[in-house]
């Protein structure tokens, strides 16, 4: 596991955070920790969340006994994570379904309270749900609708203006700017239910950004959108973030979103942070091999390609091989010495593949761990 906190990042926070630090909520925090706390926009220490879920056995009889005696199981959705995000960073959360990404976002937006640990966003503890905090962040969930379904989006915007206490001229300026950037000017007067998914998402984003939040949480904002709509949303987010320097935490399953937007990637699996760094770093760290593509001259394909590495694909006169990272130089020189090769390329495996492999690996490790735990009798 990689600790994020130790890493120094070049940026300085541009705004002073209000110091609503409450020592009583952080029993083991020191003043030095407090100093760190006001440096970053988001600071998470040992954050834990477990749920109690009802375990129902199969069948009618079990349903009836379940009426009287319930069998509960603890699910650890987030298992004590540490994370620091500085003001103006755009961070992606990656991880398989059920890894704890959404739970983390819910914790940081105060929808749920943790089982343990501490978090501070802009100097506030999210789950205290103070209005001062609620006016400074926004949460957009790709699968949830926050606008009034039967009314045009502009009515929802008007409501947001009031509940977030946005000054009238400020409101108009921000709204016009967002509407311009997202190109939804003509759609403002149309009932939300008549909008397409992509148009609705743009309206959701506008509504969420009207009060110019300092921190934005995006939970799969491009889910279910077509490629063009996805691209538009990406373009907007990139532009807006660069312009406003707000802090954004994004979860997405689309690697394209992540590649386009975030320099920093945090991978969560089974409630733990397993990687924190650059997108390119994932490949260096988790991929043990490279993909070697050979274009043979004069259509003379050697028959013993397997001795160089795992053969992935052969379409004469081309062959794709999976070669161990450490032996790539050796393999390459040997191939070039022994065969007539017209063209050669060495590539990293696709990011999706690396991440999928990594998820599979962590899932296996997790299963092994659970199995080992259940074998050893508790003292």
């Amino acid at each position, binding site marked *: 596991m990689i600790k994020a906190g130790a890493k120094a990042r070049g940026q300085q926070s541009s705004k002073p955070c209000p110091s609503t630090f409450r020592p009583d909520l952080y029993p083991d925090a020191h003043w030095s920790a407090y100093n760190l706390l006001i440096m970053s926009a988001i600071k998470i220490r040992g954050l834990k*969340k477990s*749920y*109690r879920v009802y375990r129902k056995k199969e069948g009618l009889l079990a349903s009836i006994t379940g009426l009287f005696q319930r069998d509960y199981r603890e699910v650890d*959705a987030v298992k004590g994570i540490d994370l620091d995000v500085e003001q103006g960073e755009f961070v992606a959360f990656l991880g398989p379904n059920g890894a704890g990404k959404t*739970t983390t976002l*819910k914790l940081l*937006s*105060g*929808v*749920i*309270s943790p089982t343990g640990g501490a978090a501070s966003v802009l100097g506030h503890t999210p*789950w205290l*749900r103070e*209005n001062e905090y*609620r*006016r400074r962040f*926004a*949460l957009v969930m790709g699968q*949830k609708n*926050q606008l*009034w379904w*039967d*009314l045009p989006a502009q*009515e929802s915007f*008007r*409501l947001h*203006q*009031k*509940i*977030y*206490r946005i000054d009238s001229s400020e409101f108009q300026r921000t709204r016009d700017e967002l509407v311009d950037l997202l190109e939804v000017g003509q759609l403002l007067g149309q*009932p939300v239910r008549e909008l397409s998914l992509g148009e609705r998402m743009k309206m959701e984003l506008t509504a969420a950004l009207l009060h110019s939040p300092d921190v934005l949480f995006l939970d799969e904002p491009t889910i279910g959108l077509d490629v063009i709509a996805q691209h538009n949303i990406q373009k907007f987010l990139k532009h807006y973030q660069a312009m406003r320097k707000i802090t954004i935490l994004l979860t997405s399953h689309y690697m394209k979103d992540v590649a386009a937007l975030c320099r920093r990637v945090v991978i969560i699996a089974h409630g733990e942070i397993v990687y924190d760094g650059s997108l390119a770093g994932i490949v260096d760290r988790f991929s043990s091999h490279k993909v070697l593509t050979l274009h043979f001259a004069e259509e003379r394909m050697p028959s013993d390609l397997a001795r160089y590495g795992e053969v992935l694909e052969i379409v004469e006169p081309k062959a794709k091989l999976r070669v161990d990272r450490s032996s790539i130089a050796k393999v390459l020189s040997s191939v070039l010495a022994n065969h007539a090769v017209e063209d050669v390329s060495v590539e990293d495996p696709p990011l999706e593949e690396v991440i999928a492999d990594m998820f599979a690996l962590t899932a296996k490790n997790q299963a092994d761990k659970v199995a080992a735990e259940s074998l050893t009798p508790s003292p």
Partner: protein
Amino acid sequence: MVARALTWWTILKISLEERLVYRGDFALGTLMRFLPIVTQIFLWTAVFAASESGTIVGYSRNDIVAYYLLTMLARAFSSMPGLASGIARQVRDGEIKKFLIQPIDLISYLLLARIAHKLVYYLVAAGPFALVYYLCRSYFPGWPATDVFAAFLLSLVLSFMLGFFLEASMGMIAFWFLEVTSLLFVYMLFTFFFSGHMFPLDMLPDFWLTLVDYMPFKYLAYFPAAVFLGKIEGEALYQGLLIQTAWVVFFIVSCRLLMQAGFNRYSGFGG
């Protein structure tokens, strides 16, 4: 304070707009509510035709019809269709999160949306109500004195607030049990019998009458109607209004406590 008032005003305006989106359905639903009046008038006419004396427990046929029309009016203030089930639905499908994330108070929001709902309802129903009351004017004993009428209006407003906070409290229970349909059914049954919607409560035998006196339901329909008809006077009238107010305060507090506890449970449980 001004900012808050402006927020409320905006919510009210937007809720009104939303209400008017489905105006056709709304108008039809409103008119349909008048059908039971006609059947009730026929029913009681038949009951009185069968009885020898011409009065039942002190009520003449005219009294009964007048009483029934007045409870209709009271119910137009105190009934809250879809309030509790709406809260339950929002909890179930997670829409309630909005009120945890945004700086907006759930109860104030629901109250304003409900006021908007009622205003549109009165707008649509005012004509038909006036017509029915005009046609049935001979059933009424006459216009009450000004102070009695003022008390009647006050009891109507209080019955709106009682209905709202009572049913909103019921809705908050959805934080504990996701499905509250059967609970609401029991509640509906209780209000149906013990609010006086079905028959005048003073027809009940003593034991039940005492029981009903201790419950909040009679202030939803029976009480305003009885005030109008001059059945509750003087000291008893003030006392009645005071108890009604006390119930309103009780449910304002319980509704808020339930919401707080519900939010805590919701956020502890997983959103």
